């Protein structure tokens, strides 16, 4: 590959590919520990002024989503099927990544999430595995993220939460009417419910003002700059050290190897279309589970003909995506489930933990949510025609009176559910796109039905006059959560990374997004992604001190 008319940049201590939740968290930890980081982000570095309250632009016209004409993916349910071009599980591709468009529900995982295989044993058709780390290993990092990122919540309110060493830095966000209904429904059924821990500030904290509670929140960028996001918090923290060289619009095409089989450099196309080679002692992938796997698969060499660190043929396999669905209730009274964007919520872990009596494995986080995002542009409601007088009346009846009780399915990892390179479709930069092959496991569907039924009961118990259930019959990647493509484990034959999220086969290569997750769990993943990235970054700092990783600054080998 021809590289660089430009002057080759100086070698970095660490090169991080991606500046979203995990990449920015790792950058903060590394740079604040004195490490010089170059970050290569394929998307733009947008400033808060570039975001607005515009559902048409943000949701329909790819102002935040990847444009499928430029960055498509393909999808099929099995090897026998012709892949179709689809925006499967899109995440904003820009500095800040998924934290740009989210409303940030940030529950912790529980102790049992890390040992589900021990609890339930083998589940036929799945590759269910324990994590090589425990809740206790992550607990301190949960606290660090909650306190530096800025999370509002109430410690102890979730009766099923595992022990925590610190409370939340801010009290819960104010109670929305839909959160109130959720509490009422749960209370009437004897279920525990709690204010959803959120990536927002309920009061000024750490020099930042309280978060503006707009209606344009979930799936919208934040023009006020007051939300807790990688863009608003971790990136500025890292920049402030003077050791974070964040280069936007730099699209990494491959990771090259040196003669010893270590990762040598990231080769990228910059905004001018020039190829540049960035060498580093350590390379960290933080592109999201789909794109990190894709980049490894794109990085072929004599030593790794099937993709970097992929001697096991496991890169891209065991991918999990969650799936978001809900029961929708209509109430006589006013719910205003667009206020706060529909996601300033209340939650329950009542059906989160595994229970043998249910006949399926594991469970999920359920929570109150809006129905539109926020307007009735992109919703459509059960029953009735999609147009005409009746449809208009439905919009009118539902907008201020309806809400969802939503959940994410803890989808089981399966060997044949995988991310590969598509052999026909290329992106606008000429690189093969990610091809997803995936079918749900029967456990995913059974668990989804169970949770949706419980959610419907919560709505009924809250006094809804009408409830519709939306069951899951397939996994569509509809909640932008992605995990598992380079699972971590102690056995190199069944995992790509070790417990430090370091590639078994390439000692200076790490992955810190959702890719290392052996299981997806039933909870929103980003808090754990950030906590784990923090843990991994701290380990890298420690190794540099201990001399197990060579550094450009001449520290001991």
């Amino acid at each position, binding site marked *: 590959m021809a590289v660089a008319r430009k002057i080759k940049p100086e070698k970095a201590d660490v090169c991080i590919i991606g500046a979203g939740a995990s990449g920015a968290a790792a950058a903060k930890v590394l740079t604040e520990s004195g490490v010089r980081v170059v970050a290569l982000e394929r998307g733009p570095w947008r400033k808060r*002024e570039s*975001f*607005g*309250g*515009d*559902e048409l*632009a943000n949701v*329909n*016209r790819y102002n935040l989503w990847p*444009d499928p*004409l430029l960055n498509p993916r393909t999808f099929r349910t099995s090897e026998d099927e012709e892949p179709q071009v689809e*925006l*499967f599980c*899109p995440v904003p591709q820009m500095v800040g990544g998924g934290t740009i468009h989210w409303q940030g529900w940030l529950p912790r995982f529980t102790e049992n999430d890390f040992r589900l295989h021990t609890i339930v044993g083998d589940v036929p058709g799945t590759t269910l595995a324990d994590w090589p780390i425990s809740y206790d290993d992550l607990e301190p990092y949960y606290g660090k993220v909650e306190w530096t990122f800025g999370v509002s919540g109430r410690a102890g309110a979730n*009766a099923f939460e595992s022990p925590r060493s610190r409370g939340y830095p801010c009290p819960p966000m*104010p*109670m*929305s*009417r839909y*959160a*109130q209904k959720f*509490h009422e429904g749960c*209370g009437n059924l*004897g*279920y*525990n*419910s709690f204010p959803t821990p959120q990536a927002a500030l309920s009061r000024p904290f750490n020099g930042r003002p309280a978060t503006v*509670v*707009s*209606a*344009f929140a979930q799936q919208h960028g934040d*023009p*006020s700059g007051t939300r807790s996001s990688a863009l608003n918090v971790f990136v500025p923290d890292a920049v402030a050290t003077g050791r974070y060289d964040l280069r936007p619009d730099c699209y990494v095409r491959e990771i090259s190897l040196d003669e010893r089989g270590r990762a040598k450099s990231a080769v990228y196309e910059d905004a001018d279309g020039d190829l540049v080679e960035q060498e580093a002692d350590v390379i960290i992938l933080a592109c999201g589970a789909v794109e990190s796997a894709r980049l490894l698969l794109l990085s072929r060499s004599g030593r790794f003909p099937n993709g970097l660190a992929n001697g096991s043929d496991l890169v891209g396999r065991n991918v999990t995506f969650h799936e978001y669905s809900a029961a*929708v209730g209509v109430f006589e009274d006013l719910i*205003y489930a667009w*206020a706060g964007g529909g996601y*300033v919520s*209340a939650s329950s872990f*009542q059906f989160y933990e595994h229970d043998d009596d249910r006949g399926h494995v594991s469970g999920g986080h359920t929570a109150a949510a809006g*129905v*539109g995002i926020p*307007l*009735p*542009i*992109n*919703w459509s*409601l059960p*029953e009735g025609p*999609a*147009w005409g007088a009746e*449809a*208009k009346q439905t*919009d*009118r009846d539902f*907008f*201020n009176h309806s809400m969802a009780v939503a959940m994410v399915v803890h989808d089981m990892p399966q060997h044949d559910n995988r991310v590969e390179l598509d052999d026909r479709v290329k992106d*606008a930069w000429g690189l093969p796109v990610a091809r997803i092959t995936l079918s749900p496991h029967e456990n995913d569907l059974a668990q989804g039905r169970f949770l949706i039924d419980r959610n419907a009961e919560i709505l009924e118990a809250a006094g809804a006059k009408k409830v519709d259930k*939306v069951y899951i019959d397939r996994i*569509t990647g*509809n909640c932008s959560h992605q995990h598992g493509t380079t699972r971590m484990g102690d056995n190199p034959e069944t995992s790509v990374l070790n417990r430090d999220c370091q590639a078994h086969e390439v000692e200076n290569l790490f992955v810190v997004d959702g890719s290392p997750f052996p299981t997806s769990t039933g909870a929103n993943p980003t808090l754990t992604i950030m906590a784990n990235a923090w843990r991994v970054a701290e380990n890298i700092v420690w190794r540099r001190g201990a001399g197990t990783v060579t550094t450009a600054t001449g520290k001991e080998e």
Partner: protein
Amino acid sequence: MNQREGTDGDRLFFDEHQRATVEAAMARIIPTDHEPGAREAGTVGFVDRYLSGIDFIYAKPDGSGFEKLEGRRADAWRQRVDVLREKYVEGIEELDRRSRVQFDADFARLTAEQQDRVLADTERPERQADPEQAQATAAWAPVEPALQQTSTEVELDFFLLLALHTRQGFYADPIYGGNKDRVGWEVIGFPGPASLAEVHSGRFSTLDYFAEIREHPEMEDGRGA
């Protein structure tokens, strides 16, 4: 493609007949009742402007105008608008063809009831004949709350596209040319921002629409309940 200068200087796409046809069809998708519908909201102007080129794709977030698209992004949008234009030109011809076969007149001249019949016929065969199209339908008009926009407009058939654009023109921010005088928001009771600038500046807050009691209740431990 035919283009003409609008009275306000905007470049527009439809000729008069096309515009009248789309306006009439949209008026059946969100009809006028005791409150304004698509006609009063000006949804035809919204889509006409959308199809006029790539100058009105993204409003500037402070409402001060529209973004100028460049590079790959502009290429993608030019490609997309071309596809959409073709769908409209052909879709309008198809509406007229069906109208003349059934009622011996162009669509725009039919009664509201006749127009509903033609639109229903346009919608239905596509849903039944082709399972893949039924999926596309499900992706846009599903029995589910809004999740994320994983369907893409260029894949929708004309009727679904028209229905989606009617909703967009009725409910999207007025800066895009529809939702005139915010009538779409008045119909559903959305006390939306006065302008994009109000959101952009951080002044737009919805806390008045939260629960009167701001504190979440202390809940009982539900374990074993």
